[in-house]
């Protein structure tokens, strides 16, 4: 009789929304508050969602708008320096010459918001450059250059001078990996 309610679909996007929020805020409590705000906004504005379009893209757009407007309000409140990834996702290093995940997380969190966002959207969550550009309200070229600058900066931070530099198994790395709590700097 009636068309399916798009609000029923919301729940399926929650884990992705939370992952996106965590990578933007680098703080678990802030991320969850942001997801909550986004869910309420989406629920009450569901008539603005165009059926048949990508709901995840729509939700991510609301979420990032929420983030950037709160960031403006907070006047660049200092982010959790130890970072959510370091705290939550301590992984053992793989001794196969690949980038160490903990080093990668630390480096990733140092990128500017716009570069992290571009990399998460196109590098990790599988949006096209075109979709990401639309979500961020910028040109496709802007997203491409943000992603490329982000990758270049990561390369710099991870000291990619030669192949051996990728094997980052110094004491600091081991400390990050073995210590499940925040790391004192």
């Amino acid at each position, binding site marked *: 009789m009636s068309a399916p309610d798009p*609000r029923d679909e919301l*729940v399926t996007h929650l*884990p992705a929304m939370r992952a996106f929020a965590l990578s933007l805020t680098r703080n678990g409590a802030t991320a969850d508050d942001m997801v*909550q705000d986004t*869910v309420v906004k989406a629920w009450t504005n569901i008539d603005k969602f165009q059926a048949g379009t990508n709901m995840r893209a729509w939700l991510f757009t609301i979420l990032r708008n929420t983030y950037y407007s709160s960031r403006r309000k907070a006047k660049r409140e200092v982010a959790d320096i130890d970072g959510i990834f370091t705290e939550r996702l301590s992984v053992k290093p793989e001794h196969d010459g*690949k980038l160490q995940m903990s080093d990668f997380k630390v480096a990733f969190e140092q990128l500017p918001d716009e570069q992290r966002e571009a990399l*998460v959207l196109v*590098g990790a969550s599988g949006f096209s450059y075109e979709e990401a550009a639309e979500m961020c309200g910028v040109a496709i070229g802007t997203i491409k250059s943000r992603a490329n600058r982000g990758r270049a900066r990561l390369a710099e931070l991870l000291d990619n001078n030669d192949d051996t530099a990728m094997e980052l198994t110094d004491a600091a790395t081991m400390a990050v990996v073995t210590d499940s709590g925040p790391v004192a700097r």
Partner: protein
Amino acid sequence: MSHSDDDNRQRFEAMIDDNLKRLYSDLVQEELPDRFKDLLSQLKDQDTSASSKK
């Protein structure tokens, strides 16, 4: 830029994207806090009581 520099760069970028995907999928797989299930059922209840008043 030499050919092998290009190769290195490409390999490195592929590695970065692999790491990004791992980082992100770890976050996606985290268990969802109960507050979100509660929130959704709250929103549903509000709608139900609002429409039954009409």
